[in-house]
Each structure stands twice: as structure tokens, then as C-alpha cells.
């Protein structure tokens, strides 16, 4: 399969990339390419210009930042798997090795995955549950957006045509915290049938902030805010987790497809949120 013709640009600096992006009509950023190239081969996307940012210094690297993490847009999924800094964030560490397959993870990037905004993408749910923000840069300046405002619709983000996502900022989890990412997939490398990202921050035996978001069950990754709210101040017990599971399932909006019926997926959301919360609470107690 061959993509449509395009002009290829390989800037050496971020400023040059931003200038190209502002000047060129119908340009796309090429990061890891593990989503963009497949959709170009199928000609779902046929940009006139590709701006390859892979050789721009400063867009990679995972840096501890104020107890949280600053993740460069070009950080590959497998760097998230092997990073010592990420190991301190159990929900992120659980998600990283479940993304795509080991070879795709060598090229696919965190920033590219978020900017692609596939509702079946895993990082969107993880970043929603973590309360992360993305930094967007253009020749006009820089702005930071909460991930919930960044993910707008299927394959649609708040990125303006002249903007590049430069990094993701994951805040520190307060108190003693735990989290995980549960993913149901037919085989390694398949998109999630359902995914659930769960994080709990505990203090004095009760739940402070809960983060819950879902993969593959809506037009974007679904932020289960009612389920989160139901847990604030609650004791971490089975009843509280069951109620959160029920609310998360109600917030999901899956469609029936080859991976399962809508009812089945909603059921999996319920089970995964309950199970994930129990594991997160266990992790928080051990932390």
C-alpha cells in the first residue's frame, strides 16, 4: 500500500518546524508514525506535507518535575516501559507495556499518540485519570491545556493547525497513592476492547482524589467524573468500588463491533473499574 504523494520536511530545530507548520498548507507532524503512516497507507489521511520532528533536540526525555513528570512529545512507549522515573507512577508504568506490541513501542511516541486522539488509544485515558496537561507551542506562543480540553472528539484535538504538542505534564499524586491500567485486548498489538485507568490518592485511610478514565468506549477517552466524585472522602471498600464501577459503566458509551457488544463492553468497564480500584487501594496501602 502506498500513501498519496507528499513533500517531506525534516527541520533541525523546533522554531524551524513551527515556521514550516505556519507557512505550509495542509501539513502534518510526523513523530513515531505508528498511527499516522497506517492511516496514510489506507489514504484516510493524505496530507500535502509531512514535517518530521524526529531529529529535533529537546522533544524527548522524561524529567521529574515538582514531584510529577514532564514527558517530552517524542518519548517512545518503550522508554516509558524502562524509565525509572515512570516506575514511581504505577498507573503509567502499568499502561506502558500494554501499548501496541514491543516493536511498535520502539517508534510510537506518547505525544504522537495523544495528538492522534484515537478513542482506543491508551495514553489518553491514563492522562485523564492522572490529571495531566499538554503544552502546545506555535510561532505565536505557548499554552497549556488540561488533557480533558485537549481531547475533543474522534481523531480531533484542540491543536490549532500551527501548533505542536511539545510535552505532557503529569502532576504528583498526593498522599499515599496507587493506580493501575487494565486493558482487555484480543491479542497483543490489538486496540483495546476496553481499557480502564485508575488512580487513588489516600490519606488517613480515606480516599482523597480518585482518577478514573476509560479507553475504547466513546468518541474520546471517557473521563468518569461522577465515579471519581463518588469516591472522594469515601472509605476504600467493596461497596464504594462497586458504586464507582456502576457509575463508570453508565458514563461509557461503547458501540457493538467485532470486539464485542456494547453491553459486554459496559460490563467490562464495571468489572475493570472495581478491580482496578481494589488494586489501586492495595498499592496505596503498600506505598
Amino acid at each position, binding site marked *: *500500500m*502506498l*500513501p*498519496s*504523494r*507528499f*513533500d*517531506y520536511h*525534516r527541520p533541525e530545530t523546533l522554531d524551524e518546524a513551527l515556521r514550516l507548520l505556519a507557512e505550509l498548507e495542509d501539513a502534518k507532524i*510526523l513523530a513515531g*508514525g*505508528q498511527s499516522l*503512516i*497506517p492511516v496514510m*497507507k489506507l489514504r484516510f489521511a493524505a496530507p500535502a506535507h*509531512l514535517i*518530521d520532528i*524526529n531529529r529535533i533536540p529537546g522533544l524527548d526525555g522524561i524529567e521529574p518535575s515538582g514531584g510529577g513528570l514532564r514527558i517530552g512529545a517524542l518519548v517512545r512507549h518503550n522508554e516509558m516501559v524502562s524509565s525509572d522515573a515512570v516506575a514511581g507512577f504505577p498507573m503509567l508504568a502499568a499502561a506502558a507495556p500494554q501499548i*501496541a*506490541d*514491543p*516493536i*511498535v513501542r*520502539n*517508534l510510537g511516541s506518547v505525544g504522537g499518540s495523544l495528538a492522534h486522539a484515537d478513542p482506543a488509544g491508551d495514553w489518553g485515558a491514563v492522562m485523564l485519570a492522572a490529571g495531566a496537561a499538554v503544552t502546545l507551542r506555535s510561532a505565536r506562543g505557548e499554552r497549556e491545556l488540561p488533557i480533558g480540553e485537549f481531547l475533543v472528539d474522534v481523531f480531533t484535538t484542540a491543536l490549532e493547525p500551527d501548533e505542536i504538542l511539545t510535552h505532557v505534564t503529569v502532576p504528583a499524586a498526593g498522599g499515599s497513592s496507587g493506580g493501575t491500567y487494565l486493558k482487555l485486548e484480543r491479542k*497483543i*498489538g490489538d486496540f483495546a476492547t476496553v481499557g480502564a485507568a485508575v488512580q487513588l490518592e489516600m490519606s488517613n485511610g480515606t480516599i482523597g482524589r480518585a482518577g478514573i478514565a476509560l479507553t475504547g468506549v466513546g468518541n474520546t477517552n471517557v473521563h468518569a467524573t461522577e465515579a471519581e466524585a463518588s469516591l472522594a472522602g469515601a472509605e476504600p471498600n467493596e461497596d464504594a468500588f462497586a458504586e464507582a464501577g456502576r457509575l463508570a459503566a453508565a458514563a461509557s458509551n461503547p458501540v457493538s463491533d467485532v470486539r464485542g457488544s456494547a453491553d459486554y463492553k459496559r460490563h467490562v468497564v464495571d468489572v475493570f473499574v472495581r478491580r482496578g480500584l481494589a488494586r489501586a487501594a492495595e498499592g496505596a496501602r503498600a506505598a
Partner: protein
Amino acid sequence: MQITVTVNGAERSADVEPRLLLVHFIREVLELTGTHVGCDTTSCGACTVLLDGVPVKSCTMFGVQADGRSITSVEGLAQNGNLHPVQADGRSLTTVEGLKQDGQLDRMQEAFKEMHGLQCGFCTPAMMLVAKALLDRNPAPSNEDVRWAISGNICRCTGYMNIVKAIQAAAGASVPAQA
């Protein structure tokens, strides 16, 4: 666009369209057909090559992205660059015995042959490259490490058992005759 890629240790230059996929650059421009096109949708891993030592799916990368970088394909596995003409001509592992006449097989190729790590051979070049990258990083992998490493590569013949055994044999692990 003019690109120069170090392929199996030798610099190769060509003028290519930006939309030319790396796998087509390798197979059609360089005529190294040991790298296979399987699913063409980033699923099966048959097109895997090592880019600066790291496994990538060459159907999901443009040739121009490899400009100035280094690639190892299955043809690069035989030591001393002593390729058998048949191999350079585009056959891969099914002709692997022929390699003995001219060149020396890589340890991984020997192990796949000895342990019957292949049946039809279509997935084999990629399996061996992924395995080589694994052993470069982890010289004594567990069976689980091996299975994890090849989980992006599909084999429809072997059931993977002998592939795992072959990789363990290449790692120098003692492998039971029957498992």
C-alpha cells in the same frame, strides 16, 4: 530525495520518493528481499529490521526517515558479510544451508536451523532479528522474556515453541530435547 542509509554495514544511496516505505526501499531499490511484506498493516512483524540496533516495522516507516541511519536486515546476519549469492538474490532462510558453502552463519541462524525454529520461513528473518536485538540487551532471557520479545511477530506455522527453543539455544541455554 537523495538518501544514504548504512545497510548491513555498507552505505547505500538512492534517490527515492518520500512516500516510499522503508520495506520497499529495502526490497525493491536495494533488492534485499529477505525482509518480507506480510500484513502491510503494522500487525504481523514480518518486515522487521533493526534500525540502529532496535527492531522496527519497516512497513510503517518511510525510507527517507532512515536517511543517515543504520539498518540491519536478515542479509546482515551472516558473519563477515559473506552472503551466499542466493541469499543476496533474495531468498532467505529456506536456503540457509547454502550459506555454509561461502559464508558463516550467524549463531541465531544456526540455532533456528538446529532447533527447527521455522516451517514455512516467512516470519523467520524478522524473528531472528528481534531475537538478536533481545540477546544484545539481555544475554540470558527467560522463556517469558523471549515470548514477550517476539509478541509483535506472528508465526502461523510453528506454534512458537521451537522459535523460543531456538532463541534459547542461541543464548547458550541448555534446551531439553523434548519440551
